[in-house]
């Protein structure tokens, strides 16, 4: 096949994978923005969400029922985490908070496997994980339907969140909190409720990510590792920027695929594990605050 067309294909596939990464990274950003917590448990939440959804369907709940139940469950989980893990730790050092969320990871993983067992399950969203026929026929590009679906969903999700943040009252409150906790409190914004809300939203985002990833590669423990894919996206995008992670996700996805295909063979391949991180470092050396992250001005 033509060199350039192949390049194009790698690029597109990469961009689409990037969307999947961004989807996971989104959960991190929401929570970090609102409560300054780097929630490492996001990966475990993705796993838990997808597993629960499939679990409910196995118990006989139809799709339209399993979805709201799981949404509710995730919201509940989010609220619970805020109430019982983070509120007692408020004003602690960021490392302590990070560590707490890693401890949380163990809890959620254990919980998921305790409740739903360790069997690998498949999740069928009714979308084939196969190339779009007409695209393949006309352009020779093989782009999986589910990837495109995922891209659309991610787009919709981000758009909705953006709308919620900019238009609604809650959104404004949220942004106020993100800017300055103390100030937000002083103008009478119920900080705790906002945090709980954000955690709930993050839980739902985790569900969406989990369903899409689950539909791609099965609902199973390996889903917790998607968090590792999200981290470089986060540093490049900046912990606090929603558009940042989307763009960064695309960058990471494309770069890592191109690198694997074109650089990989030279060094024996398998460089996807670390390439995004090195990319992120190089990026940071140029822009320490990330793509869209606020510039940190340190006064004396």
């Amino acid at each position, binding site marked *: 096949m033509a060199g350039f067309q192949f390049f194009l294909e790698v690029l597109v596939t990469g961009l689409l994978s990037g969307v999947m990464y961004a989807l996971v990274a989104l959960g991190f950003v929401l929570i970090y923005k609102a409560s300054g917590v780097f929630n490492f448990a996001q990966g475990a939440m993705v796993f838990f969400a997808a597993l629960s959804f499939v679990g409910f369907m196995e118990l006989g709940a139809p799709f339209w029922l399993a979805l709201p139940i799981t949404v509710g469950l995730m919201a509940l989980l989010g609220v619970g985490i805020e109430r019982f893990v983070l509120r007692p730790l408020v004003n602690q050092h960021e490392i302590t908070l990070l560590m707490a969320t890693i401890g949380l990871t163990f809890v959620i993983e254990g919980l998921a496997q305790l409740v739903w067992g360790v069997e690998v399950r498949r999740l069928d969203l009714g979308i084939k994980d196969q190339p779009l026929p007409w695209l393949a026929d006309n352009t020779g590009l093989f782009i999986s339907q589910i990837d495109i679906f995922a891209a659309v969903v991610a787009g919709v999700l981000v758009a909705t969140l953006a709308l919620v943040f900019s238009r609604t009252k809650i959104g404004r409150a949220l942004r106020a909190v993100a800017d300055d906790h103390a100030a937000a409190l002083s103008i009478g914004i119920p900080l705790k409720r906002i945090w709980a809300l954000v955690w709930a939203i993050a839980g739902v985002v985790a569900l969406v990510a989990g369903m899409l990833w689950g539909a791609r590669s099965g609902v199973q*423990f390996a889903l917790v*590792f998607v968090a590792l894919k999200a981290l470089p996206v986060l540093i490049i995008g900046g912990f606090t920027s929603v558009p940042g992670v989307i763009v960064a996700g695309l960058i990471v996805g494309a770069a890592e695929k191109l690198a694997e295909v074109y650089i990989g063979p030279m060094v024996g391949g398998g460089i996807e*594990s670390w390439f995004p991180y090195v990319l992120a470092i190089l990026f940071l050396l140029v822009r320490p605050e990330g793509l869209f992250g606020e510039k940190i001005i340190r006064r004396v």
Partner: protein
Amino acid sequence: MFDDGISRSLRGLVAAVAVAAATLVPALAQAQGKEQYFGIPSYRVGPFAAGGTGFFGGIIDYLQYVNMKEGGVNGVQMVWAECETEYNAARGVECYQRLLKKGDLQMHIFEPLATPIAYGVLNRVDDDKVVLTQYGYGRSDAADGRVFPWVFSTMTSYWSQASAILNWISTKEGGVDKMKGKKIAHLHLDSAFGREPLPVLRRLAKDWGFELIEIPVAAPGIEQQAQWLRIRQERADWVISWGFGAGMNSTAINSAARINFPREKMVGVWWAGSEEDVLPAGDAAKGYFAAANVPSGKQFPLVQDIEKVVYGAGKGNLSDPKRIGNIYWNRGVTAGIFWVEAVRNGQRIANKRGQMLNGDEMRLGFEALNLTPARLKELGIEGMLPSFKLSCADHEGAGVVKIIQWDGAKWNSVTPDWVSSDRKMIREMVEESAAKYAAEQKITPRKC
């Protein structure tokens, strides 16, 4: 297991563990009568738990079966203790040490079903007189019993498997001579496990004149877009999928579907050939081949009997009985068979009929493993295991695989008989590699 003196001298540091030890004592007390003790280092949580629960469940079910069916081996009860390793080297070593003694009982066989753990204890088994079995994983050169008296790569090593898979592919292509100019992609987890078969593949590529494309996948392998684009670009004729973990394997199949690569041209290693590995891929997995050291299914009399006797009495180990007869569980049962056979042989050789064996006797018993067709029939596992025998020099034995194919619901054997590897070539490579190891470790191989 826990030493009182130490718990005193270190109370401040780990009093907690000492407490646990104390609570453990009653559990040990019940070890009386004639019992052969086994340690079971299982992993029931984490990314590989699906395999762990199946495999170790199978072992336990078989030991249970032997006890219930015939009251143990000549009256010697099979007893065991379990320990969670999380497929982690450090945890595994701790389990090994913890399981080593149970009251006054000694562990004589250790089967972690995890390469990192097997390596973690490799240097300890000689002193502790523990038979380390690597059922379808670990060092291929452990097949040389002269250098590795206590380590067994029974019954087929990675190298043999790779050779067997290629033998089968060549027959599909219509003979070795037809392999010239073919392109075979080795899609493998980018780890020691994934690279282990490379020496065999490279050598055969040279001898047969096919082109080997080595394509590593970074762990955990749930992203393989780039790799499959390369496979498509290279126009590979066959893909050997050398992955581990349901995540990587199902992703491989899905990714193949994404580029319309025929699943009938994919052969998975046996860690890519269980129900758990293909189920997540759904219909995409139809027609996918895999090598198997043990086929799946309930058609074997023994399996049916275990279901009747053990699960009938509600003593089964699988939380979900539907998993009876699937790949990992069947493999576990056969591992249990190796153990029990070893005990029988040991009792016979040491003529300690109806008595406990020590480490050396267990090792001799395992080395005397001899599954004749007649014996397989007796056990009710014809076609479940190949007929093979071990010896002082040969710790591998069979070196054969069955090729199975997924029809969307279950695995079917497409090769009624076992596909053999190039035993002579593999043996050469084994002895060469083992000799190198012996030299590096200053081991003088024993005479056989």
